[in-house]
């Protein structure tokens, strides 16, 4: 199992795609989370939202639903939709490894969100597949950039003072 590493260039492309989706879907917030609950990127107004907690709970939600799917002999439920009084949330799995969340209210609709998410999923999938290829290809070449390359035991000790 490899770690999830994201470099500047891919981040910029992901960020761009999330912004596009944010506008086209007329959403309140778009967020991308890895399946283990770490927030990767977001677009929109995160002012009053604890995005770290949102990321972890969303991943928990997907994990629990995935557990149900397995129990029922399904591969997964790739889309979840939660309807609230004011806001709704559409959650889907992208490229089998990350989770895309779209928070929206009555200014948008489930139909628009589904359509736009589908289009963005294609673009994001391409980015993540490229990232995978890159991670496999030049892990060695990037070594000098690694934050761990020069880390000493003292650096780590220092963190825990």
């Amino acid at each position, binding site marked *: 199992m490899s770690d*999830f590493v994201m*470099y500047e260039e891919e981040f910029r492309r992901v960020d761009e795609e999330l912004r596009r989706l944010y506008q086209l879907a007329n959403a309140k917030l778009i967020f991308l989370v890895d399946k283990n609950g*770490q927030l990767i990127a977001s677009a929109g107004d995160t002012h009053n939202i604890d995005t770290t907690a949102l990321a*972890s709970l969303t991943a928990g939600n997907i*994990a629990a639903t995935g557990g149900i799917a397995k129990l029922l002999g399904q591969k997964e439920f790739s889309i979840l939709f939660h309807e609230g009084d004011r806001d709704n949330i559409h959650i889907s799995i992208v490229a089998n490894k990350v989770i895309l969340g779209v928070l929206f209210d009555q200014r948008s609709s489930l139909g628009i969100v589904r359509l736009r998410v589908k289009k963005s999923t294609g673009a994001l999938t391409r980015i993540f597949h490229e990232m995978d290829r890159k991670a496999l290809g030049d892990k060695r070449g990037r070594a000098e950039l690694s*934050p761990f390359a020069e880390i000493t035991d003292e650096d780590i000790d220092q*963190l825990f003072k």
Partner: protein
Amino acid sequence: MSFINYSSREINCKIVYYGPGLCGKTTNLQFIYKKTAPQQKGKLISLATETERTLFFDFLPIALGDMRGFKVRFHLYTVPGQVFYAASRKLILKGVDGVVFVADSQIERTDANIESLEDLRINLADQGYELERLPFTIQYNKRDLPNVVPVAELDSLLNPDKVPAFECVATSGRGVFETLKNIGKQVLMELKKHY
């Protein structure tokens, strides 16, 4: 599976507190939450039943500080300890970078400890991990109670590989941060090996 973000210069790691029901996993997190400066911590999320038993997980993000220009963050999770939440426990181990096994030191919980440790091994194996190859710390909790098993005996029962083990009283905080520091260091050392 840690997440290293070069764009925002962050390293995020996932640490899971595992152990039998009522051993003090949530209490560990509550103490860490209480004693961490506000700017270093996020919200403590507890998905618990009405009787405060963990239903799915507890979650606490903490920021440690900077290491060579990278912000280091730990995401701490607990699993629900009760036997019948097996399916949920397995899910939470997904992408784990380090495990703390919280053992209940009381004599009557000896079997529960052994069973839970075995359950941990099985669930990790299902996710493609081996406990022996993961950063792993053991905590002997509830050392303040009168009916506890001696540490030497707990060691021989639960810690054949001699991983770091700490005596702890999670309610008062004794040993809580020692445990966290130890697993944190192991996780970062392990990451260092790979990068």
